[in-house]
Structure formats: C-alpha cells, structure tokens
C-alpha cells in the first residue's frame, strides 16, 4: 500500500514538474513565436492593416536574409573551428599545467565576461587607436593610425572572430579538460602507446576523437548560439552585411513603422531554420544510440 502511495505521489510530482516546464519554458516561447508569425503577416501590430504577404515577399525578394544567414554561419563556423582547435591543443599538450589554480583562473576568466564587455575589450585592443595599434606605433612598425590594419568593423569580420574565439575557447578548454579527466584519456593514451601507437597516432586516433565525440552535441548547440550573437557583431561588425540578430533588431527598431513586420519575418524564418537544424541534430543522435 505504501509503495502504491509513493508511486502515485511520484507520478503527480512528475506531472507538476512537466506542467511547470510547459508553463515556464514552452508556453512563453510558443506564445512569442505565434505572435511573431501573426506580426509577420500583418495580423497584429497597430501600424499594420491586416493579413498580407507583403512583408514576406519583401524580405524574400531582397535576399538580405540569405546573405545575413550565410555571413552569420560562416563567422560562427570559423570562430568555432579556431576555438575548438585551440582548446584541443591546450588540453592535449598542457592538461597537467591547468591543475595550477592561477593558470586555470587566467584561462577561464574570459568566461565571466558578458558579450558587451568582451566587445568593448575588442575595441580597446584591436581598433586603430587600440592597444596593438599603439604598440606597433611605439616599436616603429606603423607610422600613423592609418598604417595599422582594419581589425574591427572590417571586411572579413576579423574583430568579431577574434572576440568570439576569446570567449568560446576557454569554454571548450574547460569542457575538454573535464572530459579528459572523466574519460581517463591520459590512461587511454598510455594504453595506445603500450600497444605500439606513437604520440601522433594516439593524439589523432584516440584523444581527439574521444574529446570531439563526447562534446559533439554541445559543439552543434554552441554553433547555433554563436549565429544568434548580438552585442559582439553589433559593436565590432560592419553596417552591411550584418549578423542575423543585428539585422532583426535593426528591422524591429526602424523608423518606418509600416515595415517593422519585416523584422518579424526574418525572426520567424530564422527560428524555423534553427529549430529544424536542432531537431535534425538530436533526432540523428537518437538513431545512433538506438
């Protein structure tokens, strides 16, 4: 009888937990998405005049969304490849050194920086009047400000990528160091060596595959997260093309109130695409484990 009561109580707690999750997590997102869809078709919005495809046609005809999506994906992918490579290198070569508290504190410090602060640091360090420009002037590499290369608001998004790497690499370093310890990668490395593998083989065939396999879901999600970054591309990016969040906010805040719905169109398309990618990532992993 007591077992049955305990099961019933556990069952109702589960239901309440699910209900809370639905109310706090699913419902607000679903409501916001529905509102954005209605806004994008002109159904809601006090400056709108009723249902229309006008905003969708306008967004799809300019190609700005596609350009911005490609630009965001490229910047995020390059930043992730550099960050992960750096974190892998540091983990494999220096994992023992990070047991030192001071070194690990310095390495993880950028994790505590909000995006907007990291972006301002980027300006202070990378701009033509920033730290490196002054240093290069002092040591005689450049004769004046114009001689220093464009590293922020630049054509190749170098400033955005460097700043992304400075905040993303420490995160993956922390993650890889934990995996390295938990999965006893060091011991597997020694085992591989005892079975005849050289150092290069044990790194490429044992250590890196384990670290990447254990973190692949997080890598995919972080890539999506970077694509939606706002403050760093806002401060360090160019006026065109712009990363997706910057483009969406620009459209939502535009002075022509009759065109605000275009921002919602981009937000809706972006949400659908990202939702599909996320679903694809998770459904594929389920099949693998099944």
């Amino acid at each position, binding site marked *: 009888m007591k077992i049955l009561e305990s099961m019933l109580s556990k069952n109702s*707690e589960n239901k*309440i*937990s699910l209900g*809370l999750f639905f*109310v706090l997590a699913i419902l607000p997102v679903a409501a916001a998405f529905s509102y954005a869809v209605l806004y994008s078709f002109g159904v*809601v*919005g*006090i*400056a709108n005049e009723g249902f229309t495809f006008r905003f969708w046609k306008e967004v799809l005809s300019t190609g700005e969304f596609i350009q911005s999506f490609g630009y965001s994906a490229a910047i995020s992918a390059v930043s992730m490849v550099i960050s992960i490579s750096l974190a892998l290198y540091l983990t494999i070569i220096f994992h023992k050194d990070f047991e030192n508290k001071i070194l690990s504190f310095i390495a993880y410090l950028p994790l505590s920086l909000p995006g907007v602060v990291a972006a301002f640091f980027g300006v202070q360090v990378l*701009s*033509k*009047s920033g730290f490196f420009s002054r240093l290069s002037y002092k040591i005689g590499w450049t004769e004046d*400000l*114009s001689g220093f290369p*464009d590293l922020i*608001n630049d*054509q190749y998004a170098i400033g955005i990528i460097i700043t992304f790497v400075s905040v993303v690499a420490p995160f993956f370093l922390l993650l890889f160091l934990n995996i390295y310890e938990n999965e006893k990668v060091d011991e597997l490395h020694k085992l591989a060596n005892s079975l005849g593998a050289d150092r290069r083989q044990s790194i490429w065939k044992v250590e890196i595959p384990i670290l990447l396999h254990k973190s692949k879901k997080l890598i995919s999600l972080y890539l999506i997260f970077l694509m939606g970054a706002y403050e760093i591309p*806002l401060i360090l990016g*160019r*006026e*065109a093309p712009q990363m997706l969040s910057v483009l969406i906010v620009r459209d*939502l*805040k*535009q*002075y*022509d*109130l009759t065109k*605000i719905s275009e921002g919602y169109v981009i937000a809706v398309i972006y949400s659908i695409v990202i939702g599909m990618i996320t679903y694809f990532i998770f459904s594929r992993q389920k099949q693998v484990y099944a």
Partner: protein
Amino acid sequence: MRRIFFILLTMIIFGCKDQKATNPTTDLLTLEWSEILTRANGSEVTFMMWQGSPDLNKYINEYIKPHLKEKHGITLNIVGGQGPEIVQLLMGEKQANVSDGQVDMVWINGETFFQLKAIDGLWGPFLDKIPNSKLIDLSNKFISTDFQQPIGGMEVPWSITQFALVHDSIETPTPPSTLPELAAYVKQNQGYFTISNDFSGMTLLKSFLAELSGSPHGLDGTFDEIKYSDLSEKLWAWINQHKKYFWKNGETFPSENTKLNQMYANGEIKISYGFGEGGIDDKINQGLIPKSTKVYPWKNGTIKNSNYLGIVSNSGNKAGAMVAINYFLSPDAQFRKADVSGVNANTVLSYDLLTADDKVKFDQIPKRLYGPSIEELKGHAIQEPDPRYMIKLYEDFRKYVIEK
C-alpha cells in the same frame, strides 16, 4: 512542489494586477492648476529618456529629482530609452490594451513625435495647462514647429539646439562647407571623413539635400516625393562618386555619433559633427579633444530644432507628469540646465518673457569657452524638414550607399 506551484500562482495573479494607482484623467484638462498639483503630490512619475550624457544624467539625478520631490512631493523614476524604444514600448502596450503603461512622460524629437502621433501614443493637448509654457515664445517657428509639424500642444519644448560641424583649426584651418569643397577636401585628405548611419549622419545628409535643392528652404513644407527622388538621386550619386576617399574607403560607415566622436578624438577622422552646436566644450574640458577644435556651420545652413517632453496616452499619472514637465520648464531648472560646465543646453524660455530677477540670473550665465552660441549660428539655421525625409534617407542611405 505544491509550495512552488502556489508561489507561482500567486506571482501570476499579482503580476497581472496593475502596479500603480491610477488617477482619473478625463477631466484633467478642465481642472485648475492647484487641483492638478494636489493630485500630483505624493505620486510617482516614470520618465523615459536617453541616458547617454553623463552631464544630463547628473542634472536629472542630482538637481531635478530632489527639487521635484521637495517642491511637489513627486518621485521621479528614470528609465533608459529613446525614439525606437519608446515607440516599440507603446506599440506593445497599446497592442495589449495596457491602460496604465510603464512610463508617464518621454523625451522626444520630431520623428518620434511623428511616429507617436501615428499610433495615438501621446496624450494632450496639454501645453496650455502648463503655467511655465507662458514663458515660451511660441511664435518662434523653431520651437512651435517640430519637423514641419505644428506641435499642437501635444508636446512641450525642453531645449533648442543647432547642428554644426567640428574641425581642428590647426590641422584643418579651412574646413569644407559646401559639397564641391567637401569633394576637394576628401580627395586631399583621404580616409578622414565619413557619415554616421544614425540621427546625426542623417541630419548632415539633410543639409546636403538642402544644398542640392539650391536653398536653405528647399526642404520646407510637407514631404514631396518627386522632390525627394530628384535630390536624393543626386546625393547618392555624389556620395558614391566620392566614398572611396571616405573612412575605410567608404566600404562601411560608423553606426552612431558616439563612435564618430571617438574617432575624431583618436585622429581617425578630421571632421565631426553633432547637435548642441557641435558639443565640443565638455569634450575639450575633459581633455578628450584638442583646444584648437572649432565649430562651424554648413554654408547653406544646418538644422536647428527643439527637443520636447510628451505625456504618453496610457500614462497612469498624467497629473504628476504635467507637474514634472512644468518644473522642467521653470526658470530655475532651465537656468541650471544652461550651465556651460554642465548640460550646456540652450533654454527654450524667451528672455523677454522672464521676470526682471530671472533676466539678471540668465545674464550671468558664462559664455562657452570654445563652441559658438546658438545666436552666432542663427544666420545658418534651417528648419527640420518633414520626418518622412529622415525616414527615406535612412532607408535609401542603406540601400544605395552602404549595401552598394
């Protein structure tokens, strides 16, 4: 778990309840001022304003707030936000039928006034009910007309300002003040000029557009689509022809005026611009820009306009907002705001309408050390054009210049 559920339910119920006590407002405009003062006493007023100026923030927090509390028992709460944020907030609240909104009064200029009128976001007309508005010369077109729109009592002027350009008199002794002069200048000084993609940059483009029209009054009147198309086509052609000589070869443009100011301070650009008659005194005093920095107008004229205070249509405390606005307009508050070592803003009060004592006080305001007075620039003042010129300039500058 039940406790959490109960707390959540309580939060939702109380969260849905109006937080502020509301005052009936239907009869406010027919009430005596003394009655409005009584209603406002002890209330809270929320003011949404741009908080980008440390001097202005200090003035509001250290002067306005305590005096408003002491004289009228009003607690003034400040929330950050300007043009688009104000409009977005009100659009959202109106969509949700919120009758007692988050803010009571707002600091706005012409294009926000235009947008708020379009969504019925402002309450009024209340200008005539404000006792200190009697000290304003409403026959002054730079005050009574906001971006070619009669203010109609729906907003109250707070300060008046003129747009001006800034140069270093040692590095650039003869700065350009016409488009042909600017063309020659950018060729000789490559990379040292740019146009910010914001309110200031668009205001500069309005000066260029007026010059292309051949007259300081070329953009006066309501928006003329044909005139705009003709003039803007010439403007984009001129910019695209010369942008290779701009900052970063014209491949990108700074997103805002603060960035432009930083670039001028760093020596990345040699010509800057802005409202507040160039706004150089505070920057020179802080040691950010050289003392040789001077301000000059565009030959065909630069925009002169006022900025305003409005009460939002869904304010829950319109009486409090009216009393606060009346205090913002008082000779004492306007005198303090004109302090050249502080906010350094031109008063909207008419000198002739002040009392003898106040005239003496205003006479004692020290002159700016570096920048010109608004009087010195008045020969080059042009009126703000219809807001639709601004809206179109924003859109087309991106379409025909930035993305080209």
